[in-house]
């Protein structure tokens, strides 16, 4: 893993996947409460 880990070529695939999950979770939580609000109009 020494040379293949050249910092210039490091692509944070795991971090990108994590960020996608984070945004998805955010959308679920936010719209979950949003629809609770609409149902209480």
């Amino acid at each position, binding site marked *: *893993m020494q040379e293949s880990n050249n910092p210039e070529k490091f692509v944070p695939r795991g971090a990108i996947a994590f960020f996608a999950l984070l945004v998805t979770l955010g959308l679920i939580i936010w719209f979950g409460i949003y629809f609770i609000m609409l149902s209480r109009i």
Partner: protein
Amino acid sequence: MNVSRFLKNVILAELFVPVLLLTIGIYHGLMQVIYRAGVIHQASVAKLDYYQGLTLHGVINAVVLTTFFAVAFGHATIAFYLKKEPNPRATTLSLILMVVGTLLAAAAMLSGKASVLYTFYPPLKAHPAFYIGTAMLIIGSWVAYWDWAVIYVRWKRENRDINTPLAVIGTLVNFTIWFVCTLAVAYEVLVLLVPWSLGWTAGVNVVLARTLFWFFGHALVYFWLLPSYIMFYTMLPKLAGGKLYSGMAGRIAFFMFLILSIPIGVHHQFGDPSIGRGIKLTQSILTFGVAIPSFITAFTIAASLEYAARLRGGKGLYRWIWKLPFFRKDVFLFGYLINGLILFIFGGLTGLVNASYSLNNVVHNTSFIPGHFHLTVAGPVFLAILGMSIFLVSQLTGKKIFLPTINTIIPYLWTVGVLIFSTGLMWGGLMGEPRRTNMGLTYLNPASEQYHSYWVISSMLGLAGGGIMFIAGFLYFIVFFGTFFRKQTAPSTIDFPVSESLHEEKRIPLFDTFRPWLLLMGIIILMAYLPAISDALNNTGRKAPPYQPSDPTPILPKNER
């Protein structure tokens, strides 16, 4: 790095005093979940009333502990990175003001004359010692900040072409936010509330006082959070065995916090009268702006950890996670910081809900709110304070950590507790469970007409989680005081883990100077807050006389009694 005996003693005192008080704060945290779940149906236990305990819990945990820690950590960071110790006279003055102020406020709260909660909303009146003590604590922290600013300016004059260390930028940004936002609360306390509580002025404009409080109150949460962010950026990648993915991200994040932390406080006042909807909507939208640095941080830290784990032979899209040093005693700080980040995923996202204009109607002042902020202030903030306080005490006193295995488990236990606790509170909040209420007397008392069975399970979850948090807190006290009172085995030092950057960082002058950012900060604050203050002044019909929490009739000035 060697530290002088003086600085060592100052930092140790600034850790010892708040942690000693924290024992009272955590005890009252446990008591609240017991009252609220209806285990006991009493107004007080051991002569300490529920609301008195809630005041102690809020003020000690969220104001005293966090302020003392930020100053202690700031001293350590500035001295470590700029190789210059603070001025002894300024530092002594700062320490004395903070300790005396804290003792005054603590005496007022413990005597039961200041049960007004940590937001101290007038017209509920506390003893003047409570207001004066809080103001002294804040002013003491200003003195430390001014001294660091002088050290920084001198250092910068000698090092014009060297990029200022990220930790120093973070510390100065944090205390600049703190200084500006506390100007409003100092005005509220010293000009509006102290004369009023002494009976010199008859009434106070309540909406104005609330607006000034929240000018401070939301920036306060970033003041809590930024020391943790400094640790995430400058220490966590090194602790994990890797490098910081991008130092630029840290600089962008800190300067965004500087300009956007304050002009969003009205999102705590969506339910208030007198303030126009336009300002409420504007500040709600600005709050989305202050979420962006946290999104950047989430990604950059994840990428840094991934890099570290791949260096250790981690593979796959997510299997690398198991290569991280979760339970290693030599880098125990990693456990504290990573658990804080896990909690902050949920804390940050629920925070977006709270600040989202009409969505706030679903959650405002329900137990959803404490559910949320225990995922932030009792998450990344508190865990970083616990971990770093043990780290600093061990290094400064040259003593080995007491019960190191327990020390690695504490953050995990705490995190499990907070997750259960917050799930209960947030679920209850969506069913209308109010915060700041001794529910054991009425809503969760089967003998009461107001008994509300829907809240049994949610408040029981709160109790279960709170119990686990209490156990984790108790173990922390054993480790902290155990380390403190051990025999010295090594010389006194400060040696922070320092993360290198993965890519070489070019110095960009815009991200190594404060002036343009301070100007922008001032402009945005004025634009966001002048209309809010003007509304509070013009639309409020009358001023309010002071009230004792126990008495529905106002306290009349002495000459009218």
